[in-house]
C-alpha cells in the first residue's frame, strides 16, 4: 500500500508538471483558487477568453484532452494518465468548466457513433476548445425520467425536422454544437422511440433563453426548436436506439473520477480557525468541533475513496457505478456546511454583500447554489437508486409505463 506512481506514471507526471509550470496562466491562479462555487469570475479578464486561450495552448502541445486518441485531438493517454493530468493541472482545471460537457459526454458519444469523416472534422476543434458543445437531454417533462422527453424529430426526405424544447442545458449560450436526443416514434414504449443527433447550435430555428436560477445566476438555458432541420448523416446510432446511445454518453461520464469534488469542508475548517465567538475561537468550541469532525471524515472518506478508484484505474480496472457516491455525499454536505457557516455568523449570516459578509459572502453563495448540486447530473434519489440497483443488486423500480406506448402515458397528475 503506497501513494507512489509507477515509473511510467512518474514519467508522465513529470512531463505534465514541467509543461504546466512553463505554460499555465499564473496571473489568474489566486483568483481561481478563491472562486466560490457557481461563480467563477475574473476581475481583470473575461473568463471565456482565458479559458479558451488555455485550452488552445494545451491543444497545440497535445494536452487538450490527453486520454483521447491522437487523430481526434488527444494524445492517447491511459485513464490513469488522465487522472494524473487533472491532478497536475490543479486549480487551472477550473478553467475547463466550459468544456466538461463537450469533452466528457459529447466527444465520447461522437467517437462511438458518428461517421469517421465527422469525427475527424468535429472532434479536434472540440478538443482544442475552439468549439464548445452542449448536451440537449433534459426537458420540462423529462428530468430524472429523461426517457419521458417529448421533443419530436420527424423524417422529411434526407432530413429530420425537430420541434420541441430542452431545458437545463449548461452553456448552450456559448455552444457551437450540441448532441440532441429526440422522440422519433411516440407509438412505442418510451425507451424504444428515441433517436440521437448532433447539430449546429447556429441552425435556423434554434432559440436559446437563459434560465434565471433560484440563486440569481444564469448558468443554464432553455433551448427551443422550431422546424429545425438536421441531415440524417448527423444521426448518432440507429433510429429508435437513442436510449442506448445516451447510456453510452452517461457511462463515459463515469470515467471521470471526482477526486477533487467540492464538499465545502476545507473552507469551513479555515473559517472556524479564524472566527472568534463570544467565548473564544470557534475551533475551540466543543459543539463546533463535533460538527467539523463529522464533515471532516466525510471529506477524507471521499478523498480516499477516490484514491482507491485511482489505484484500480492504475491496475487497468474500470470504475463502475460505485463512483456515484462522490456527488451524493458532497452535494448534501455543501448544503449542510453552508447552512452551518451562516449559523456561526449569527444574525449577520443573512448578509451577502462582499463588503459586509464574512469571507466575502462565500458561504451565502454556497447556500444558494447548493440545492442545484443535489439535483443536477442525477438527483440524490437517482444516485441512491443507482447504488441500490447496480452496486447492491436490489430490484429495479416497478415501471408502470414500461410497456405502454409513449402517447398513451398520462401527462397530468391531477385532472
Amino acid at each position, binding site marked *: 500500500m503506497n501513494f507512489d506512481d509507477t515509473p511510467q506514471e512518474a514519467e508522465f507526471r513529470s512531463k505534465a508538471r514541467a509543461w504546466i509550470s512553463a505554460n499555465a496562466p499564473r496571473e489568474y491562479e489566486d483568483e481561481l483558487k478563491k472562486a466560490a462555487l457557481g461563480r467563477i469570475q475574473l476581475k481583470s479578464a473575461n473568463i471565456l477568453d482565458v479559458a479558451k486561450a488555455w485550452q488552445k495552448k494545451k491543444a497545440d502541445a497535445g494536452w487538450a484532452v490527453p486520454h483521447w486518441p491522437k487523430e481526434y485531438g488527444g494524445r492517447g493517454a491511459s485513464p490513469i494518465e488522465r487522472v494524473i493530468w487533472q491532478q497536475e493541472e490543479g486549480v487551472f482545471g477550473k478553467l475547463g468548466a466550459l468544456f466538461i460537457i463537450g469533452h466528457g459526454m459529447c466527444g465520447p458519444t461522437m467517437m462511438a457513433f458518428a461517421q469517421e469523416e465527422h469525427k475527424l472534422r468535429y472532434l479536434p476543434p472540440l478538443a482544442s476548445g475552439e468549439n464548445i458543445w452542449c448536451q440537449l437531454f433534459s426537458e420540462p417533462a423529462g428530468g430524472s425520467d429523461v426517457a419521458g422527453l417529448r421533443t419530436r424529430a420527424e423524417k422529411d426526405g434526407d432530413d429530420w425536422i425537430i420541434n420541441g424544447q430542452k431545458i437545463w442545458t449548461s452553456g448552450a449560450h456559448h455552444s457551437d454544437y450540441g448532441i440532441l436526443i429526440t422522440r422519433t416514434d411516440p407509438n412505442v414504449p418510451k425507451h424504444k422511440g428515441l433517436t440521437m443527433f448532433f447539430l449546429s447550435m447556429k441552425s435556423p430555428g434554434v432559440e436559446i433563453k437563459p434560465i434565471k436560477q433560484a440563486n440569481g445566476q444564469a448558468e443554464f438555458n432553455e433551448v427551443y426548436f422550431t422546424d429545425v432541420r438536421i441531415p440524417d448523416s448527423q444521426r448518432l446510432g440507429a433510429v429508435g436506439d437513442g436510449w442506448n446511445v445516451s447510456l453510452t454518453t452517461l457511462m463515459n461520464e463515469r470515467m471521470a473520477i471526482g477526486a477533487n469534488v467540492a464538499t465545502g469542508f476545507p473552507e469551513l475548517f479555515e473559517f472556524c480557525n479564524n472566527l472568534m465567538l463570544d467565548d473564544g475561537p470557534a475551533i475551540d468550541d466543543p459543539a463546533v468541533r463535533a460538527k467539523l469532525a463529522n464533515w471532516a471524515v466525510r471529506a477524507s472518506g471521499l478523498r480516499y475513496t477516490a484514491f482507491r478508484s485511482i489505484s484500480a484505474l492504475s491496475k487497468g480496472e474500470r470504475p463502475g457505478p460505485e463512483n456515484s457516491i462522490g456527488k451524493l455525499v458532497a452535494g448534501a454536505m455543501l448544503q449542510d456546511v453552508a447552512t452551518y457557516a451562516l449559523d456561526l455568523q449569527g444574525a449577520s449570516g443573512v448578509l451577502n454583500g462582499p463588503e459586509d459578509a464574512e469571507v466575502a459572502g462565500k458561504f451565502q453563495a454556497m447556500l444558494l447554489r447548493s440545492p442545484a448540486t443535489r439535483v443536477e447530473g442525477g438527483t440524490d434519489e437517482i444516485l441512491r437508486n443507482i*447504488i*441500490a440497483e447496480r452496486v447492491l443488486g436490489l430490484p429495479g423500480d416497478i415501471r408502470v409505463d414500461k410497456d405502454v406506448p409513449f402517447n398513451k402515458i398520462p401527462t397530468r397528475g391531477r385532472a
Partner: protein
Amino acid sequence: MNFDFSDDQKQLRDEARRFLAEKCPPKAVRAVIDGKAPYDRDLWKGLADMGFLGVAIPEAFGGSGAGHLELCVIAEEMGRALAPVPFSSTVYLAAEALLLAGSDAQKQKWLPAIAQGHAIGTLALFEGTGNPSPKAIKLTASNGVLNGTKKPVADGAIADFAIVAARTGSTGRDSDIALFLVDLTSEGVEAKALTSIDPSRNQAEITFTNVKAELLGAANEGWSILSQVLDRAAVLIGFEQVGGSDRALEMGRDYALDRIAFGRQIGSFQAIKHMLADMYVSATLARSNCYYGAWALSTNAAELPEAAASARISATQAFQHCSKNNIQVHGGMGFTWEFDCHLYYRRSNALAVGLGSLSHWEDQLIERMRQKNAA
C-alpha cells in the same frame, strides 16, 4: 498509486474469512453470549495455529513478522464474524503496548506467549464513566506498588496480564501517568466479571490492592505511549467495524431480496433501497478512511494521529448506522433473539465506546487538525 492491499494480503483476508466461516459461525458467538464459556477457547487456539495472533509480532518474539497491513485484513474478518475472543485486547492493545515500550525481557516473556495463544493480555485504562484523559486516572503507583480500581476492563476477567495506567504524581502534567505491566495472577489482584450490552465479549472490574508491578516504558512517558497505543488500536478496531458494517449491510440486502410484502420484494421499495444505499455510503467512507489509517499505521507516518481519529469516527458511525438499519430492514424479525441482527447491533455499540466515546475522538480529530494547520 497503489492505495490498496496487495494480492498476498487479500489472499490472507480470504483465508481468514474461510477459517472464521467454519470455526466462528453465529452459533459459536451465541455460545459465549449464552454464558456457556467466557470466550471461545477452541477458536482462540485455532487463531494461534493459523498464525493470526502473531501476525504483527516480529519473528524474534515468536510472531510471523508479517506486519500491520496483514493484521488489518485479519481484523476486518474478526469484525465480520463477531469473533467472541479477546483478540483486540490482546493483539491491538497489550501486544502493541509491549512492542512500543516493552523492555527486551518483557517482550520475550509475553509476546511469544501471545503469538502461541498461551497468554491473554489487556489494557486497564478506564475508571468508571469518562474518556481517556490523564486526569481521569486515579489508580496510584508508589514505588512500583499499585492501588485502585479499573472499570470497565475489556476481557479483564479472562486476561493473564494487563497494561495498567497509573498515577505517579499530581503535577497535573501528562508525565504524572506511567504504565505498568501486571501479571494478573499476582497477589492483591481481584477481577470480577461485569455484564454488558455485548455479552460476546468479556468486561470486568479489576481491583488492585498493594500489587507489585513493573514499569512498562519510561515512568514519565506513560501517557504518550498510551496515546500511541490507542491510535493504533483505533485503526485496527476500525477494520473490525468495517467488517461488521459490511456484514450488516449484506444481511439487510439479502433479507430485502428474500422478503415479500405487498406482493413484491421489499428491496424494490425505494424507502428500503435508499436506506441500504445510505448504509453502503457509510461503509464505503469508513473503509476508505480505514485504508488511510492502515497506510499510516504500517508506515508509522506522522499522519497517524489524524488518520487514526478519522478511521475511528468514520468506522464507528458506519457500524452503528449499518447495524441499526439492518434491524429496520428486517422489521419485527430483526428484533427477535433468534435473528442475528442484534448481535451486530450489540457489538457495534460496544465497539463505539470501547476506546472512549465518539465525541472524544471528534474532539481529538479537530485538535490534531488544528495543530497541523497552525504548524
